[in-house]
């Protein structure tokens, strides 16, 4: 089996550095397999989060050769045989240890969002929604909460505005509620004032790293920004929308 070289960041909140490892790589292996092999054979205490190993749970988020990725979906054959693969933790969140970061801020943001508030059921006791009316919401609900979009977002990563901006993940969650055919809550003022929709400058970096290929910017954030504009700067259109539906 060919041997490959890796640099893996080791350390904790107090500091750390890259450690070099040489690992035999079998056909079909992904970066997470490599980390497990290092863990089992060379560094038992190497910290890495993972669960499903199939791109469904969003646990093994990290930066591989500088790109935010899921380690379980990063096949080794996409890197040149003589290339040293560099693996480091998400930059936007505080380090706990090695490749594990403290992402608890994200869970706090989710609690701030007004929960789903359904309309009453129909007379037959059923909810009716047409598939074409839920396609968009289902796209948003594909989100596996890997927080790669949060990691790459300039507002959070470079401008450190966690105080004012909720990040792409939670704008998408807000969009999934706002576009849910049964939901009756109004989150538009909060989207502008509390969640900072205006801070997003639409560079689409979040969309680019999304492992679920959700159209975060074009399908989610931009329509939310439009709703905010309609509400606060075009009250006539807002009234029309309320009266005649979203097509107005």
């Amino acid at each position, binding site marked *: 089996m060919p041997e490959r070289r890796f640099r893996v960041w080791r350390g904790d909140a107090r500091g750390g550095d890259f450690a070099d490892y040489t690992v035999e790589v079998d*056909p079909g292996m992904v970066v997470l397999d490599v980390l497990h092999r290092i863990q089992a054979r060379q560094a*038992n205490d190497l*910290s890495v989060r993972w669960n*499903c190993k199939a791109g469904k*749970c969003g646990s093994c988020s990290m930066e591989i050769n500088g790109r935010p990725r899921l380690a379980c979906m990063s096949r080794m054959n996409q890197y040149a045989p003589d290339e040293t693969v560099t693996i480091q933790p998400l930059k936007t969140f505080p380090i706990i240890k090695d490749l594990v970061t403290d992402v608890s801020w994200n869970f706090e943001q989710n609690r701030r969002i007004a929960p789903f508030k359904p309309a009453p059921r129909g007379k037959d006791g059923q909810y*009716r929604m047409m598939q074409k009316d*839920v396609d968009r919401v289902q796209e948003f609900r*594909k989100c596996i909460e890997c927080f790669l979009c949060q990691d790459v977002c300039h507002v959070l990563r470079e401008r450190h505005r966690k105080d004012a901006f909720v990040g792409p993940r939670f704008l998408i969650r807000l969009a999934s*509620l706002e576009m849910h055919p049964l939901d009756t809550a109004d989150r538009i003022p909060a989207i502008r004032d509390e969640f900072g929709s205006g801070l997003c400058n639409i560079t689409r970096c979040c969309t680019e790293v999304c492992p679920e290929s959700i159209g975060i910017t074009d399908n989610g954030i931009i329509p939310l920004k439009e709703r905010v504009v309609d509400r606060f700067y075009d009250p006539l259109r807002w009234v029309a929308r309320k009266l005649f539906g979203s097509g107005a």
Partner: protein
Amino acid sequence: MASLSDIQTFEHDVLVIGAGGAGLRAAIESSAQGLSTGVVCKSLLGKAHTVMAEGGLAAALGNVDSRDNWKIHFRDTMRGGKFLNQWRMAELHAKQAPDRVRELEEWGAVFDRTKDGLISQRNFGGHRYPRLAHVGDRTGLEIIRTLQDYGIHRGFQIYMECTALELVLDDGRVAGVVGYWRETGRFVLFKAKAVVLATGGGGRAWRVTSNSWEYSGDGYGIAYEAGADLMDMEFTQFHPTGMVWPPSIRGILVTEGVRGDGGILLNNKRERFMFNYIPPKFAAETADTEEEANRWLKGDKSARRPPELLTRDEVARAITREVNEGRGSPHGGVFLDIASRQPADLIKRKLPSMYHQFKELAEVDITREAMEVGPTLHYFMGGVRVDHDTQMSTVPGLFAAGECAAGLHGANRLGGNSLSDLIVFGRLAGVGAADYVRRLAAAPRAHDEKITAVVRRATEILNRESGTNPFLIQEDLQGVMGRYVGIVRTEGELQAALGELERLKAETARVKAQGTSQYNAGWHQALDLRSLLITSEAVTRAALVRQESRGAHTRTDFPGERDEWLKVNVAVRKAPGGMQTEVLRRPEPPKELAEIAFATIEALEVKHA
């Protein structure tokens, strides 16, 4: 070692261990009943194993075929379980699943829709009618996110990345749980009057498995050490279709939805071999020609179901036999073909994560080529033995729900019955725990000696000068279980497994974790070994006791179902001399349920004028 005064303490009426579908549903219920409730989970919230469930949840809503009703769901579940299910649990499940599904919708879940705008339902193995509410092939994600987003506003506490180690009892009743924070390694005591185990199964004891690292049998280990009975542990489900290539992803699940949506199984001679494996019990309800199976796929309601949709035990055994007799695919599986059966856009719409998973991990385009698949350890039908209505185990105050509990599925689980199990029995466990707590005369006390012993055992692993490598013991165990306790079993192999398990227990007694207690993967792995070994031994001993082949348990030295074994369940418990097995006599089934189970389909269908 830390003194007891350093141990962080929290107090709740009810503590739930596990934050998958069953755990979250139990916590929602307990909290709704006005009790102080906490949830402890090993991972971040929303990452539990439920997130990996693909195909759907079974509930007789009758939205797609109005002939369906709870009785037919009940009948299908009993037949799929080879009549070894607990009758009352199968009844409760079939009756309550539709309300639980509609409740999820009310909490924000967005299922795929029928043309009339109702919750759509898909076909699955062993289910007579299209019955699985679903969201493409990511139904588990939808359920866990719905429960998570609803649950965080219900007032219960969630303790993430915290691992439960052992129960603390007071005079035989539950008094609390000792655990540790994964981040710091600091120990924590949860004082609780009732504990609900919702820890899932123990598939990580096998190498080829669809399960994640979390499935280390924690609930089985915790319940066993506290003196509770485990039951039906011999029934481990091998899902017929896991990925087989490349090696590093061997075992990852390929949803049964592929077959529900028309996929067929082929051997290397391109024969649709499942027609050769239709058991007499299902012959009357299964198509016996390709022509009839094709008519079924086109929606002809008079056509019978294709044999690819037989129950999982039947399909897994058939695939194993094809491979063993030299008719397998290049990498030791068989072919699963949907490319020639459905248009590419439909495949991508109905099975998006299968498309993605094969494309990314195996470089196979499932809209153009067949997949290679083979059996993978997927699910435990057995688990903690519980009261059918309250979900309480044989230890007062200890409850269990979901995969961690035994009873609903008997000898073989139908696909789709797991997700519905979680929400039906998760809720009932919440009700059961709340009732128990309200009836308690005095709060139990958590005694210090027990807590000290748990902490000492855990810290020894770090403090030892040298010792065995926890990851290598785990790999060793996976090899042993794969080799000796696989899809077909014999007495000799099972005895060999017991010998190997003794060796692994001795090695585990000397296990050493390098480094500190801070987020230390090796230490976490070392601490998981005890539950993995208890789980493995329980499966092996129960498999030795049951001298017949039924459902997911196949003994080549005792072929075929035997009537005397239909009358009993096998239980496992801790005894002074080690693990003890007991054969438990099953009560006679209630007459009205037996009538439904043995009725013809036609007698049970909803009639339309």
